[in-house]
């Protein structure tokens, strides 16, 4: 059974569609304007505000979510494009009351976050890396991380966090 999402009056009444998708394991049916961004759907309609919007033009990476396990900029993705997909956000990583997962814990252990605004994006990208069939090589990790901006940490502790998370999920890799 899919749950119906209530929404405010559609702001583009002439162009809307029904979409069915799965968010954090929950099957949903929703009516959305064609122009509604995935980031606004998640934050505004589903109240999953852990996904943050930093630049709205696809550079900063704060809004990154997993669409069918692939990191995607939700600020550059229309909700209607996601019909039939499985979406995961930071809220879906750990069940309430359960301890933090390996990736989340790594950011805490290494002080890989300060204001926390960019963190969900980094955590989602790192989650995708941690779920890869094999441990990604250092170049690939560096490349993935370069899709995110953090203004607080100077990145050093974020790199340490990602290393710890991947050590845990894939075993020790080559260390620098």
């Amino acid at each position, binding site marked *: 059974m899919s749950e119906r999402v209530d929404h*405010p*009056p559609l*702001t*583009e009444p002439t162009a809307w569609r029904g979409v069915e998708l799965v968010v954090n394991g929950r099957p949903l049916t929703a009516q959305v*304007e064609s*122009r*509604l961004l995935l980031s606004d759907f998640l*934050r*505004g309609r589903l*109240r*999953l*505000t*852990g*996904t*943050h*919007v*930093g*630049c*709205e*033009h696809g*550079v*900063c990476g*704060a809004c990154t979510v997993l669409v069918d396990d692939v990191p995607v900029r939700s600020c550059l993705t229309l909700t209607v494009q996601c019909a039939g997909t499985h979406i995961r*956000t*930071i*809220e879906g*990583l*750990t069940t*309430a009351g359960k301890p*933090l997962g390996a990736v*989340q814990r790594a*950011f*805490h*252990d290494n*002080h890989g*976050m*300060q*204001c*926390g*605004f*960019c*963190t*969900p994006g980094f*955590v989602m990208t790192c989650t995708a890396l941690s779920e890869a069939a094999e441990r990604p090589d250092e170049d690939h990790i*560096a490349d993935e*991380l*370069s*899709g*995110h*901006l*953090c*203004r*607080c*940490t*100077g*990145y*050093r*502790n*974020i*790199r340490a966090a990602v290393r710890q998370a991947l050590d845990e999920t894939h075993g020790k890799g080559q260390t620098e």
Partner: protein
Amino acid sequence: MTRQHSSEPTGYVGQSVPRVEDERLLRGHGRYVDDIALPGTLEAAVLRSPHAHARITRLETAAARDLQGVHAVYTASDVAALKPLVNEAELRVPPGLAEKLEPLVRTLPMPLLAREKVVYAGQPVALVVADSRYLAEDALELVEIGYEPLPVVVDPERALEPGAPLVEESWQDNLALELETGVGAPDTAFREAAVVIEEEFAVHRHVPSPIETRGVLAAPGAYDGRLTVWANTQTPHRVRDHIAMSLAMPADDVHVVAVDVGGGFGQKGILYVEELLVPFAARALGRPVLWREDRNENLTAASHAREQTHRIALAADAEGRLLGLRDRILVNFGASTMTGLVVPYNSVIHLLGPYRVPHVDIAVRAALTHTTFTSPYRGAGRPEAVFAMERALDRLARRLGLEPSELRRRNLITPEEMPYRTGLLDRSGEKQEYDSGDFPELLRRAVDHIDLRGVRKRQSEAARSGDQRTGVGFAVYLEATGLGPFESARLTVRPNGQLRLAIGAPSQGQGHRTSMAQIAADAVGVPMESVDVLGGDTDAVPHGVGTIASRALVTAGNATHRAGLALRTRILDAAAERLGVPAEELSIDGTRVRHPGGAETALAALVADGAELSETAYFRPGGFTYASGAHAAVVDVDTRTGHVSIEKYVVVHDAGRIVNPVIAEGQITGGVAQGIAGALYEEMIYGPDGQPTTTTYMDYLLPTSSEIPDLHLDEIVTPSALNDLGVKGLGEGGAIAPQAVLTNAVEDALTPLGVVVRRGPLTPDRVRGRIREAQAVHSEQAAPVPS
């Protein structure tokens, strides 16, 4: 420094306690302004001027108003009754400075919405409130507005020339600020010096760029008529007072809460017109109104920073001992006088830095231009001053044929000279006095860690004609931290026996919930877990200043410490009375108070009994406490591409006693990253027409993980004698030196080619430009460089 009598051996201060704020944020349960959902919230969007300078000839909002879902469109005439914006606290000139320096500091109140004229691209002209941001932005396109473009000036030098287009028509010129100060007899010093160098160095315009843009949510209270405002500000009490003044409300009817804030760096430390317009609209419409800036607005219309030019001269004897310094500083304020003296005067009092300079002559002017206004950004005038001074020292070293670090060593003030008076007046108008520090040791360690000898050896061995050139650079800086006038802390035993600490200084990622709880727990003698910290809620603590100017730990930290000691006494007295034993025989154990004889009581029981277990303390710093640091870097410059890569970056810092080493390290690495960013990548560029051209993150280049190296960190600790905790501020420190260090290193690398670097950022294009210029000028002396 003596550790106060926190008699319980909890000892959290000095420990790398893991942050208590992380778990919530890592589950996606942060609450930033834009995350708050109130029923019936309307969303606002701002119509901004596309012109740098223009007369508004027509403004027609009917079509926008008629759009379905639009609730209001406000223009200047709708807000004419509201007082214009003035950052009063920042614009106040301390009496000592006013008397002795008689500076010219003009104030230009900022209209909430442009009337008749716009004076920078990005200036707010109208505010639309609609059911959603999508609709509000649709409506912006329906506002019909006519502009008659006027002449534009973006260059501050040009702005001060006679006949330049005026930013403020009622002024005779664009001169917003002017002051002179000095020490000794600089003219004589320059006349009699063995060596004089004179150079012009410019620091380009930066945008602080927190990843969370600005945001305000205001909700009128249907029941009590109060107004609640959630704002991602660094200074909630100032925002409260200004809203109250502007909307003619009693200040205690305005409740400002700084919830989770996604970085500030100074940009969120001043008042903005949006923080007044949104509450105004909420009251007018009787509905909650939310505004969230987009990135384009943040880059073009939130405050900019740093743009300064220094015409600096140094006089020295033949051994390189400094005799005099002269500097003519020109600041581009942009289109308003946002924070007056703050940044320019910070540059003045940090220019001499850790060096002994007996004769000084400094003059500053600030010009209005048709560009976005400027305000403090992490470092706030210090990186600019350090850039000028440290570049000048390198030029002097070159002239004297001295190793740059050796020239610095000869001029550094020694610990034996502390407290050291520069002869200038500090920001409060008092005699500037460095309280503590060991600058020679900072430098010695930096030279060691960077392996200067090794670098010089590599340089001399490398073929002089290679494409890759190695260079090394240094900078030593100090920072007056712990800005007054005060900060507040209220520490209360809650009904369950746990503690709540409310402070006036909110966190934008600095981890106050952890570090302040460490301080409070030590002072009271309770476990950290029982202290909950609330920062930046104006209802929780009535007075406050905020988290700016490397001040929170010094001021709010010491207020917390004092409140904790007082609360401990109060708890023990209340328990002694209840148990009928002497207070000095009691000890606090978690949420209970125990007597060795077996009698005990719960804190909760004391509260239930009616004991008022709450203390509010204020810390008013007696003077600035000086943090300091030495940075060093080795860079490789590819002379074919102009690419600069950082091979090693060393930081040796001194911020007095450290409360939480991991958090402190995070502050330093983050600050250094911002400094590197400004040195190599970021620049806010205006065209001559006043159009900003770097208005997206594709043009304004924030570095990613790939560009910021791991740092080599070291520290020394000279505790501050000016506060009980012995702490100094360190939020800004990391950002102060990198531009000077990296530019010195790049110039060092390219010295064989005759390159002199006078401004940044050191983009490949600019580095190649300097190499080409040097080749043209020095073609006969320089080694050939492939092009």
